[in-house]
């Protein structure tokens, strides 16, 4: 059984969805929880059209149904978890009636899904940005984890929690320590022992305190505490929520270096632009997929003009700063990483080649990697610490719906688009429909708009004019835009900069807007 929650994988992760479809053809049931009846939802046994930002209420109500009917996995809970009693108390505040009021989903459907999930032999919860692009993103994820703990659908082959990553190395970026609080291999930078070990390998001292994440950096820019910025392969001048504000902050920096394969809007604002090679086809290295599989990327093309690989640029930069790194090859850099990060230790290049990638952890060169993790939770006696239930309360999205801003705008991807369109805009896609404001036929009638009519979409931050497109997958009051066409449909002028203090993710999924027809 598959719970596809806040994910339109059919469009955003098409080859993962091939595997889902194989499961469906083999008899797996799929419940799709999404405000839109998306391309993915059309393959579901049941589509639950949830109101944007009410996921925690749904998860908690499911938890209550499961407990009330005695379908929770008592043995697993006692063996591998803590905090169950607090969880029970909290979900008691989410009876079906209240959940329906908050989520817009009929109680019977919630009940059916909860029972199906709890009684399935194996069950997966797969999610994407519909869960994580909220101001309470971490709580949303915790609410799903609680369901897996409640039923024991974790740490077993075929059961688990599966966040689908949006880029080829989101997972790898975190694994490599490109997050403010971790060293490579998720070793806590504030742990003196772990830090000392890595300092020993690098022969350098490491700042003992965590750094800022992206959203905190923008706050620091606003406060005047961050005056210089080195941007590698990111386009915040188009991808940030409340993007006009972000652009202003970037423009006021003393100094900005941008290292990118394109002259992006961010690069246009830079003092220095370092042209870099495309990582997936003009340089060597590794990336890590959603399933923790480390695989090699290889150079197939010579980069254009003066562009150099990121590794080359960073090595030169280090040399200029007196770093003395030399010019390591990608494999040499990787071998150093294998010394620093124990969970990558066994991943020699030749093994990655021979095995078609390896899923971490891979502790040594005899270790095959792990198809799934958390199996320790089933070991008797339990290996390591038990996992806590972390009760999470539902709260509304920050950008409230009011009479002035009565429509809920949410965002997502098209099958042939990718993020701000810098890459996907380059090829001639026959199915590209461009940037539109998608709305339900009920709202189209109310506003008197037809496909192609221009509507003015206004949030509390900005207004933009875009063509309308009626989408039968949308419900009354819900409108949709993609982020692929910032030149013609700059949706991030509208979105709110409210962000999750735990993950730093902004609430791209929930904007309150007003719609007016401006022309045919």
């Amino acid at each position, binding site marked *: 059984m598959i719970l596809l929650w806040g994910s339109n994988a059919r469009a955003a992760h098409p080859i993962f969805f091939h595997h889902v479809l194989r499961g469906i053809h083999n008899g797996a049931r799929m419940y799709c929880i999404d405000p839109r009846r998306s391309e993915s939802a059309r393959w579901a046994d049941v589509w639950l059209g949830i109101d944007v930002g009410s996921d925690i209420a749904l998860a908690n109500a499911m938890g209550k149904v499961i407990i009330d009917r005695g379908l929770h996995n008592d043995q697993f809970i006692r063996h591998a978890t803590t905090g169950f009693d607090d969880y029970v108390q909290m979900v008691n505040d989410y009876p079906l009636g209240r959940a329906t009021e908050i989520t817009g989903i009929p109680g019977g459907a919630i009940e059916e899904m909860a029972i199906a999930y709890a009684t399935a032999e194996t069950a997966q919860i797969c999610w994407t940005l519909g869960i994580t692009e909220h101001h309470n993103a971490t709580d949303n994820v915790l609410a799903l984890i609680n369901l897996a703990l409640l039923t024991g659908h974790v740490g077993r082959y075929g059961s688990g929690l599966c966040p689908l990553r949006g880029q*080829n190395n989101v997972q790898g970026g975190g694994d490599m320590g490109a997050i403010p609080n971790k060293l490579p291999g998720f070793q806590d930078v504030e742990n003196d022992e772990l830090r000392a070990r890595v300092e020993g390998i690098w022969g350098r001292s490491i700042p003992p305190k965590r750094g800022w994440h992206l959203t905190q950096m923008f706050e620091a820019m606003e406060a005047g505490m961050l005056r210089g910025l080195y941007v590698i392969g990111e386009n915040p001048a188009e991808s940030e929520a409340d993007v006009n504000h972000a652009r202003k902050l970037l423009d006021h920096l003393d100094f900005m270096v941008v290292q990118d394969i394109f002259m992006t809007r961010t690069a246009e604002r830079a003092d220095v632009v370092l042209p870099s090679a495309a990582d997936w086809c003009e340089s060597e290295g590794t990336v890590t997929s959603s399933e923790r599989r480390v*695989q090699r990327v290889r150079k197939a093309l010579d980069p*254009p003009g003066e562009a150099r690989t990121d590794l080359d640029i960073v090595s030169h930069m280090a040399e200029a700063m007196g770093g003395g790194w030399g010019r390591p090859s990608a494999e040499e850099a990787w071998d150093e990483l294998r010394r620093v990060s124990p969970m990558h230790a066994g991943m020699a290049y030749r093994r990655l080649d021979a095995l*078609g990638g390896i899923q971490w952890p891979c502790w040594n060169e005899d270790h095959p990697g792990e198809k799934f993790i958390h199996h320790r939770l089933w070991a008797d006696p339990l290996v390591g610490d038990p996992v806590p239930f972390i009760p999470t309360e539902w709260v509304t999205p920050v950008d409230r719906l009011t009479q002035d801003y009565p429509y809920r705008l949410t965002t997502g991807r098209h099958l042939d688009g*990718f993020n701000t369109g810098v890459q996907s805009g380059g090829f001639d896609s026959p199915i590209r429909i461009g940037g539109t404001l998608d709305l339900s036929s009920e709202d189209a009638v109310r506003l008197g708009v037809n496909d192609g009519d221009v509507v003015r979409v206004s949030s509390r931050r900005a207004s933009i004019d875009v063509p309308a497109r009626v989408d039968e997958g949308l419900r009354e009051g819900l409108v949709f835009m993609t982020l692929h066409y910032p030149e013609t449909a700059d949706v991030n002028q509208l979105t709110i900069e409210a962000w999750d203090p735990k993950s730093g993710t902004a609430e791209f999924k929930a904007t309150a807007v007003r719609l007016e027809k401006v022309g045919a």
Partner: protein
Amino acid sequence: MIDITIDGEVVQVVSGSTLLDACRLIGKDQPTLCYLETLSPVNVCRVCVVELEGSRTLVPSCSRMAESGMVVQTDSERVRHSRKVVLEFLASSVDLSLAGSEVRDWLDQYEARPDRFGPRAAPTGDRDRRHAGHHHRTTGSVAETVQQSIKIDNPLYVRDYSRCILCYKCVEACGEDAQNTFAIAVAGRGFDARISTEFDVALPESACVYCGNCIGVCPTGALMFRSEHELRQAEMWEEERQTVTRTICSYCGVGCNLDLHVQDNRIEKVTSPQDHDVTSGHLCIKGRFGYEYVQELGDLATTPIDEVLARARQH
């Protein structure tokens, strides 16, 4: 385990194996056209047939399950004759010039003489409009063919059904075996059978989502990247000068393996390995076709993004 006898040799195979699996186990690969490891067998090409003792007809080795005690001949007169005729029918009516070299080897091996049906008949040009029963008896002096003009109706790939042997692989890949889009199917009957979109509409009006998984499985070059087609037309497609480099797609976190076919520092075609368990050879539109942004498009470092994209779109 199951014991069967192939050409006098006893073979042990695990239950659930096909006769083809058993043949391969002892190094006796059989010719196949419609069979692919990643697709369900459809039993249409009939070149993999073998003789099974006690069976009235020859059986397709790609899908017939091995049963204990089976006695199989893979090179009997009957098998050789059947394969020869099948290959003659195909080679006389279809352009096999871009099919894998193994197909030409089989033609030699089975002494196929496709020319014995007479010279190729002039193309009729109406293959997409034919109906069952609307035929006149032919004189038998010429060999009818499936020759027709190439369908070029979108910027990404072309369909040259003069090369189509109706192996159904594209239909399977578009359908339940992979993409589940069901944009194409087999229309017509008998010699009129052909791969078609619904009502033969052009691809942009069809359900096609341009994953290119049909191209990935096509064994005869009937389905082809437009870039490859244009280079071939200009006699500039030079496979011996190309490199094939395996890397990972950048468009999402699934980790699809891409094989980039590069000529003169340009990507001309993208495939995916069929034996990798992430993709089984299948990709989406972005992985298959979304590479134009890394092609030579002028000085990227100094050209504004709008111009780069505009230039890319002209390609």
